[in-house]
């Protein structure tokens, strides 16, 4: 229990959850085979919209985060319509350009405070703490301080968001839409010939990815007190893509695993001091050399399931009947 209550580990787990949401956002766009680098841009839209709504308009966090998602979704629809005709590397470059445009606009707007960024964003933990003390729990409960309870609540909210998204992805994957997506990913032309409305599904997933990325942005803004244009620059777009590349983009568990590993790794490697970055890079290179399709694929999942299934069968067979 001490381990999970330590704010340091708690914070890392929170970042993991945020990155997991980002991983799901890239999984959604990748599920139609679209390589988009615009998710950092959508994330910054979500972060700024929700931060400004809570600060300037005093909106509750939940409302403002959802508004951020809607705003990014509309934006995605707007740029998705022309851009989605592009494929592969061309789409990647167009969406990368979009991310940069968002960054430069944020840099020059007055309301976003330019390069100075927005500081003093109310954090979820602080607000939960306030509400708890209003209910009369100011001295804590069950041996936990108020601060700890608030932090745990934030963590629960984040985990709930991830769980809902994973559930959603699995449901989509096993539905008619999921089959259509898989067909488009395998071969766009063939899917079109089969009568699947390719453009519709591609824009749908592009927008969904944007909404999810924006939700991650909004949650991140209310976790870290401060956002600035630097947080959503090119390196963030690549980082998000990396979750899917490392973890595998076939199944939703892939980007999730990628997000967990890539968030934990820099912290685990802290003991290595100045060698940290070197090892981090080397591990990525080794992973890509030996497992280019990502850590998890449909085959690995099936393999794991079979193993589990077999052991279960063995268990029942050894039980005295």
């Amino acid at each position, binding site marked *: 229990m001490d381990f999970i209550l330590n704010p340091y580990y708690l914070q890392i787990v929170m970042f993991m959850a945020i990155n997991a949401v980002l991983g799901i956002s890239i999984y959604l766009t990748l599920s139609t085979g679209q390589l988009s680098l615009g998710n950092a841009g959508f994330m910054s839209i979500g972060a700024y919209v929700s931060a400004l709504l809570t600060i300037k308009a005093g909106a509750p966090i939940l409302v403002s985060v959802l508004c951020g998602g809607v705003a990014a979704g509309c934006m995605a629809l707007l740029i998705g319509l022309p851009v989605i005709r592009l494929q592969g590397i061309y789409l990647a470059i167009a969406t990368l350009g979009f991310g940069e445009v968002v960054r430069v606009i944020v840099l020059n707007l007055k309301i976003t405070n*330019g390069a100075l960024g927005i500081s003093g964003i109310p954090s979820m933990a602080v607000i939960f703490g306030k509400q708890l003390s209003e209910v009369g729990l100011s001295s804590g409960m069950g041996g936990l301080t108020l601060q700890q309870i608030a932090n745990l609540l934030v963590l629960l909210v984040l985990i709930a968001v991830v769980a809902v998204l994973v559930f959603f992805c699995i449901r989509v994957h096993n539905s008619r839409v999921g089959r259509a997506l898989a067909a488009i990913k395998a071969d766009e032309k063939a899917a079109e010939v089969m009568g699947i409305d390719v453009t519709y599904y591609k824009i749908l997933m592009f927008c969904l990815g944007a909404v999810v990325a924006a939700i991650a942005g909004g949650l991140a803004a209310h976790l*870290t007190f401060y956002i*600035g244009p*630097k*947080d959503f620059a090119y390196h963030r777009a690549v980082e998000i893509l990396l979750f899917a590349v490392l973890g595998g983009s076939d199944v939703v568990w892939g980007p999730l695993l990628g997000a967990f590993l890539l968030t934990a790794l*820099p912290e685990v490697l802290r*003991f290595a001091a100045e060698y*940290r970055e070197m*090892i981090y890079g*080397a591990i990525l290179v080794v992973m890509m050399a030996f497992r280019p399709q990502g850590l998890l694929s449909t085959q690995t999942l099936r393999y794991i399931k079979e193993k589990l299934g077999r052991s279960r069968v063995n268990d029942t067979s050894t039980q005295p009947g």
Partner: protein
Amino acid sequence: MISFTQGRFVKMRWMAAVLLVLSMVVMAGCGGNSASTNKQSANTAKIGVPAYLSGAGAAYGEAIRQGLELAQSEINAKGKIKIELIFEDTKGQKNEAINAVNKLINKDNVVAIIGPTLSGEMFAAGPIASQAGVVIMGTSTTAEGITEVGDYVFRNALPESLAIPNTVKKATAKYNLKKVAVMYSNNNDWAVSGYKTFMQSLKQNGVEVLTVETFADKDTDFSAQLTKIASLNPDAVMVSSLYQEASLILKKARELGIKVPFVGNNGFNSPQLMKIAGAAAEGAIVSSPWYPGKDDAKVQAFIKAYQAKYNKAPDQFAAQSYDALYIMVNALEKAGSTTDRKKLRDNLAQIKGFQGVTGKFAFDEKRNPAMEATVLIVKNGQFTELK
């Protein structure tokens, strides 16, 4: 048969990968452990230092580290209080700074934190340290509003809001400035903050601003902006940017025949400015708490010791972090404890009349430094006092 050999091949590849990763981790482990073998005793104070040690701004982090380590070795030699420094790399990124500060507070149990390097990092990490009740002191965080994020946030970096008005006032009086041009880097939080202060203090001094020109960090071509400025014929040009861009601006400006003085923010305050701009740097003006030419025994002793240890001259970042550790030790001694975080904060807030290498030092009621800055001008390739 084929599938058998394939299976073996895959297995071997996996083993090779695992071995590679393992060997790297072990290698790193051997290299990195030496720092944490220090023995812990009752009068040892653990101080955490999250700093920008890798990436584009690693030079700042390195100077900060060296300044701190020099002060540490001197303090430990005296033996009253022993200091253990724990460095963490933040890569100049907000989330890394949050994680580093959280680790230092909750895993290493430090009594105080000196850092992080960038103002943006402090905006994110300051509230966390403050909430945990741990003193966090920036040595290079000059942006507006830093100490307002929490009661435990201090800084001994001279804020631009003090330095720039000082420079503008002196330069206006000296050169009788009536109309000036202003340039700044608009994608750098700290440079934008400097620009705002420039505009404010120019207004206060009744100086007319002819034009405001912007550029971005890492730009190399400033001819468009400077051609426009040259046509307006200002009495001086105010520049808010890092030294890299500032040097190139100076070079181009002199090429275009702009001979007026250039007044800079803290970015000008680097020996690199003269190195890159050469003769073009002549007449560049900046305010600095750190002035290596100062006729002060303490300053000269510091420069000598730094030279001997690192074989190079200290810059302002090294000087400020050197002072920061001494200020911290001063407060620790007054608090009479090397672990009590609250006592340390209260004693630190009352520091007054501390004499460091960056001059006489005190904290004001908002935990900002109250100190005097010297206005410097580049003459014959050297910073000299502007009188």
